[in-house]
């Protein structure tokens, strides 16, 4: 376990919560639009540092019970983001330790030029498709 104040290192994994309709039992498994920033994500899309959690499912703690079961959890290596020219910045929240954002994938830049982010979303989804830690209830496991 790491403290969220510890430096983020390239050998770490980041967790991303993926809504159920962006996960399938087919190939491709994860939709690139699992990485679309919301309008409010001006500081970048959210991830959680796996090293800061006892269990990846802890990342679902902030959600109401009826929403929790509808999320998948995927993981991506920090090194992948670095290879794509993306950075990871701590953005602590009270509910879950290890919350971080990827500032380059922010809502302002995304809205201005979605095409620029399409290959990035695609690559993140390709890797995430092989790194599913938890599936939404109602879908089959790998």
């Amino acid at each position, binding site marked *: 376990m790491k403290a969220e104040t510890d430096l983020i290192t390239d050998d770490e994994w980041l967790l991303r919560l993926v*809504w159920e*309709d962006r996960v399938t039992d087919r190939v491709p498994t994860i939709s690139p*639009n699992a990485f679309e920033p919301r309008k409010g994500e001006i500081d970048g899309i959210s991830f959680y540092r796996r090293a800061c959690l006892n269990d990846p499912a802890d990342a679902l703690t902030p959600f109401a019970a009826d929403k929790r079961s509808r999320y998948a959890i995927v993981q991506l290596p920090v090194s992948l983001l670095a290879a794509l020219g993306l950075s990871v910045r701590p953005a602590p929240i009270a509910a879950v330790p290890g919350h971080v954002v990827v500032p380059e994938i922010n809502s302002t830049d995304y809205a201005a030029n*979605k*095409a620029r982010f*399409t*290959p990035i979303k695609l690559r993140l989804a390709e890797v995430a498709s092989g790194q599913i830690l938890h599936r939404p209830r109602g879908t089959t496991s790998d």
Partner: protein
Amino acid sequence: MTATTRPARGASAYTEPDDTPTRPLDERGLLVSEAGTSPARTWADVIDELLALHNLADDWDGQGAEAPHPALVHVAITLAQSLRGSGQPPADFAIAGVNGTVILEWHGPAGYREVEATAPDRAEGRLVRPGSEVAEVFTLVRRS
């Protein structure tokens, strides 16, 4: 990474706007047919998923996602029906974007394509060919 603009073909109810290379969309065209898809998936599945988007309310994901506007769902359904009619394969994903749009995705050997309904008469398309780090852009405008 940069974006380029290219024609989109295959959606007979839609055409390109005047600010991109203009020609009627070809029924035999290749908006998606190179992409391939899961054989088990049908257009009926896609249209059912699109219809279900009408049931979404704001904050449907618990993280503040916007419900899609009914007019954008209609755009996506019309596009899906048009593509089905021209023999194109069904979309691999038919989903609400987190900002109120509606998105169709195709994944296959010819690359990744997404079409996003963003206005009642318009959809934006993006194509990433295999191995490319650039998305090609196209716009579909509904014929009046």
